[in-house]
């Protein structure tokens, strides 16, 4: 599904990713853990197509295509989804209007017909209910006045509606209390499917108790330093990231 080979990337001339390689087969959930500043968010932004990163080497192949050559909207239509660490507020645009625009844009990109307002409301109803997103939240401007938990649930609703093949969750646990985390994790687990891969990026092991990954990778200083099964997450919880400090293991 996703194959990253030797990826090197810089921001303002500073190299953040230094030859990162990672492969996620279809249907698997991989977690990337790592200390702050290790390049986790950079990786998620590069995969989703944000501007401002200079790719200096390597390749990213998604579903057999060169992912880095695609525009952000083309990636979304092809099934790439990024759940933002800091969901963006959009004043003046009702949540329902935004979500319907996104769903129809992605459907068009996939050669499918638009959903009309009634079809959309029907499609969104069950999913929003499971995530505790009220009609009132659908009418409000996107993320404006939402609590931290509401914003993250809103991200998962978007993911459920856009039905991606590769979901990247960037620190989705940040700022959530345990109840909010549980709701978000349940939402994510409902979307696990044999045709859907996920990349869960987190600093803490806590999230991985609820979203149990197939593989865990440690990203530090722009490289994957270790890979293992879910037990690696528990180990890191005990030892922390000290062994991956600059100048240590490589």
């Amino acid at each position, binding site marked *: 599904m996703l194959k990253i080979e030797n990826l090197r990337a810089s921001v303002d001339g500073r190299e953040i990713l230094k030859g990162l390689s990672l492969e996620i087969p279809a249907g698997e959930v991989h977690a990337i853990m790592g200390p702050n500043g290790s390049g986790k968010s950079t990786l998620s932004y590069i995969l*989703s*197509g*944000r*501007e401002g990163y200079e790719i200096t080497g390597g390749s990213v192949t998604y579903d057999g295509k060169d992912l880095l050559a695609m*525009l*952000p*909207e083309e*990636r*979304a*239509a092809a099934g790439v*989804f*990024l759940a*933002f660490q800091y*969901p*963006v*507020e*959009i*004043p*003046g*645009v009702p949540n329902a209007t*935004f979500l319907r*625009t*996104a769903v129809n*844009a*992605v459907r068009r*990109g996939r050669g499918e017909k638009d959903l009309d307002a009634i079809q959309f409301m029907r499609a969104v109803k069950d999913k929003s209910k499971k995530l505790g997103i009220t009609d009132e939240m659908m009418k409000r*401007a996107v993320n404006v006045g939402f609590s931290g938990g509401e914003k993250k649930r809103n991200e998962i609703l*978007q993911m459920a509606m*856009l039905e991606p093949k590769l979901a990247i969750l960037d620190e989705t646990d940040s700022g959530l209390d345990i109840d909010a985390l549980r709701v978000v994790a349940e939402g994510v687990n409902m979307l696990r499917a044999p045709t859907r891969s996920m990349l869960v990026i987190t600093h803490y092991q806590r999230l991985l108790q609820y979203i149990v990954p197939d593989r865990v990778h440690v990203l530090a200083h722009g490289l994957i330093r270790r890979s293992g099964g879910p037990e690696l997450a528990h180990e890191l919880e005990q030892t922390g990231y000290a062994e991956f400090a600059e100048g240590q293991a490589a």
Partner: protein
Amino acid sequence: MSTVTEVSPGWLTALREAGKAGFTGLPTQRQEAWKYTGLNKLKALTFEPTRDGAQVPAALADIGAIAAAHRLVFVNGRYAADRSSIGKLPDGVVLGCLADILNTQPALLETRLGKAMDTAHKPMAALNTAWIADGLVLIVPRGVAVAGNIEVVFAATGEAPVAHPRLMVALGDMAEATLIERHLGGAGGGFANQVAEIALGNGAQFRHYVLHVEPSASMAVETVLATIGRDAAYKAFALNAGGGLVRREVEVQLAQPGGFAQVDGAYLVDGDRHTDTTVLIDHQADHCASRQTQKGVIDNDGRAVYQGKILVRPNAQKTDGYQLSQTLLLSPQAEIDVKPELEIHADDVKCSHGATVGRLDADALFFLRARGIPEAEARALLIQGFIGGALDEIDRDDVREAFGLAAANWLAGRSAPKGDVS
């Protein structure tokens, strides 16, 4: 100025002569109120109103149209009775065209017309007075509420017609009315120099909505002079989505305690259009409140001016004044000149103002694109969101909806951006 053919009463002739004397030439940019708006394009005009060529267009554009109980249509500044329809009105309400009422009931106007405010330092208003002939009259007696919307439509035909429409609104104590102006202009451009004089009695409520959707060849200068009685409220919103030059000057006198003035607006400027909103809220009495919210989107080589002044006179204790300006610039050439001004001579008041100027939020744009929305559509959605926020100041659903359609029409048809800014 002797070309007026109707037999005019002496007071009217005197009023016109006063206007003529007050117009000492076009204002220049050396005058503070006109600092950012030049009127060079008007220099070639004689200002004599167009008398012929007022063939009513076969169909009036329905952009921004609203369900109205009463509709008065003016073409080249003259009343078009066959296109107008005035519904049933409560007893005592006078609604009609100025030219007719000057002929039939001049006494109604003698004590009111030109009395709202001194136009000594307002040359364009004086020019309007010099040519006063037609326009709208609305007089509502004490305690009467006019149900339904009153819509007045201004259209133009022929090559560069000139008009000086006059709107005179007088609401008695506790009276209520809603007026919607829709300026359509015409393909041949032209110049409209309008004055609206508004007098609100104690406890009166007047809602005043203005929509400009003229072609870019049209130029409009309008002066609104409103005096607000005790505990009365004036609520205005103007959406400017057309016209090559639109200058709107609003002066509200809060003359009695407890008065309220809300002067809001939105301007959507593309091409090389120019718009100027100049507001003076004159707090003369205690316990009055005023609100100004102006939001604009400027693209291409467009330019907007917003000068908003809150004047608090020594007697105006407990004044509550508020002013906000927000502008979204979509091209590197787009320009906004914002001049907020507070002049406070009382010591127990609350006044605030704020102004922001920004570009489309890069994070929001990426977020939308990452959700599959193509860039052009994502930009449009963000602009639409900004405009939606501006129109939220309109507290009437039907007006907000109609103006929303006019804004959407602007958004769909605006000139292609010359620069790419995010």
